[in-house]
């Protein structure tokens, strides 16, 4: 699992590459701490290369979304594949995020 974070203007983009399973989520949660500081801006969660997500991964998505809600920012989930979309559907996450 790999996470890439880029910042362009008011937009922070997080690229998830690989499988966001339980052990991976523990690492990723740490790496995303700085991103939460920019939650007042726009955060794009890029899922083009996210192959798999477990409930602990979903938790990371939810915590970003909560932080943005508090700070008045915006969270966009981009390019989720069908498998992950179905997981989002099963958990009601489709209604929580703007999906592009």
């Amino acid at each position, binding site marked *: 699992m790999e996470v890439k974070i880029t910042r362009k203007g008011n937009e922070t983009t997080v690229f998830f590459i690989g499988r966001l*399973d339980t052990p991976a989520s523990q690492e990723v949660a740490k790496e995303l701490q700085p991103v939460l500081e920019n939650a007042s801006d726009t955060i794009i969660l890029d899922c083009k290369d996210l192959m*798999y997500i*477990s409930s602990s991964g979903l938790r990371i998505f939810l915590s970003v979304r*909560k932080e943005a809600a508090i700070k008045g920012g915006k969270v966009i989930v981009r390019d989720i594949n069908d*498998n992950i979309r179905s997981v989002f559907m099963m*958990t*009601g996450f489709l209604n929580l995020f703007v999906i592009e």
Partner: protein
Amino acid sequence: MKANPQANNFKHKSRWTGMLVLVVAALTLEATALIQFHYSRKGIREEASKRAESQLENTKVQVLDILNQAENAVRNNIWLARLCLTTPDTLPRVTEHIVRENPVVIGSTVALLPDYNIKLGLLSPYSFKDPLTGQIISKSLATEEYDYPSQEWFLNGLEHEDGFWSEPYIDTGGGDMVMTTFSMPVKDPSGKTAAVITADISLDWLTDLVGSSPVYPNAYNMIFSRSGKIMVCPVESLVMRNTFHEVAGQFEDTAAIASLDRSMFSGETGSVTIRRKRALSRVYYAPIERAGWYMSVVIPDKQIFSEIRKVNSFVNLLQAIGILMLFLILRNAARNQKRYNKLTENKDRMENELRIARDIQMSMIPKVFPPFPERDDLDISAILVPAREVGGDLYDFFIRDEKLFFCIGDVSGKGVPASLVMAVTRSLFRTISAREESPGRIVSTLNDSMVEMNESNMFVTFFCGILDLATGRMRFCNAGHNAPMTLTDAKRKLDVVPNLPLGIIPRMEFQEQEIAMGYDDVLFLYTDGLTEAENAGHELFGETRMANVLSTRRDSRGHLLALEQAVADFVKDAPRSDDLTMLLIHYVKKSPMFHARHIVLKNDIQQIPFLNDLIHEIAEKINLDESLAMGINLALEEAVTNVMMYAYPEGVEGEVKVDAFASDKSLKFIISDRGKEFDPTAKPEPDITLKAEDRPIGGLGIHLVRKIMDSVSYKRVDGKNMLTMIKNI
């Protein structure tokens, strides 16, 4: 084993009860006898009183009869005597006539008043019967030495117009004869008393009269004269010599004697009890007024009650015999009780040993149900109810290499011998079937071993089957046992070759058979203790009743409990004659499923990626769609993570085992661990419609498992958490 304290207690109790029974019986008998004695006494006393009174009455009548004869002799001749007054020398004719004509009169005189005729002076011709010759002799009483005018009979005769009986006296003239004299006045035609006329009678007959028929053997009569002189008395020396008062002085019971004296001599009729030297006597008395006599009958109480005493001693003897017999019976009962208690002790010990034997026997057969909780293709239940503490029935089953080995058997006979054969049979079955996979060979081998050691000529009916759980192929071999039933569709008996029971003929070939068991097939095996259960009317439970109970759809346990209940209701209180054993196998044939793989993980999150490898392997093996594989992977990861996070406490090492089964229609995973009891399916569903701000962070894992899998179930078995997840594909 120690003596049963209850039995001991009972022993004491029964001894006291025995004593109590004896005492109560004796008291009851004695009370009855006393009451009876009391009432008898009263009756007997009344009877005695009646007898005495009637005797007194009789005596009086007879005495008066004689006295009347004498009185009449006098009265009838008064006119003659009056006539003769003028010719005094004819007076002896009158007296002679009286004596001659009246047998009771032994002497008679007409005595002139001294001053009646100065010329004549004293004149008293006296005629009497010579006691020896019976000749009538006349003489004159007008002698100087006799001086008749001063005699009692003369004086009293003058005074009593109606006549008077003298005091009895002993006649010294003509032999020692007790006599009494009736005398009455004779008046001349002018009405002046001129003479006294008399008649003497002997009283010798009196003793004979009253003594001839005593009312009781030792009763006696006494007659007293006006002055109390004893006229009749059993003691002859007292007669005419002593008086009542002289004799009465000997009695210490002065009050009673005084009462008797007063009442009797004032002419009353009655009775009184007198004590003399501690002996009580009843005295009945009555007067003979005419003669001035007082009669009495004396009856000793001893005599009155001699009969009742006899009866009473007889009753007492009977009572004693009764009590003795009761005592013997009770003692015998007590001995029997002792013997019984000893038997009970032995029985208790044997029962205890049999209880242990029963526990051992029961531990030889599988009796935890469901026996294979992790299997959803098999629902097995069995019941064994021995008629006695231990029985000769058996059943057994186990799974080896995805094959269910099972058997049911019935040893001929019952009780301990049968139970030993049962134990041997079951052990041999386990030993042989550990290496054999053919029911025919298992049964043949079993038979040979049994024949070899069958010295007690017991045999075993036996049915053995092997069900291939993957394919539903069921091979079986019967050895004389009743045919099992198949409950699928038509309830019918399995078509089995009977063969012979085990233990009869060595090296016998047992024919093996085969059927295919399909989806939802049920096989029901039983011993004849079911169909031949007998009620008090010797009716058999029978196959119809059995089939009726089985016609309702239930799970295996439900079927057997319903049958057991039906048999109990049918048999009621009738003693169980045979062991009752039932084995029911409900087979749910799945499309063939194989145990694909299993992995054991440590309770460490870092091991989670191994699950991905497992799913990959399976997916490749059964050609699983990639997105399905990911979903299954997710569910598996969530379930395993749950265990790692919650089943084991922080810092405690543990294992999580994942068993994967696969068929072309479904996948099954069983996640098991030895952590604390933890049922993830009990968690409430999260609300996934909430806004992001309101959504809690956790709770999604088990939700995903439920969403992805078709079936999720949790069991706690043998200290293990077992989560079974099935995904249809």
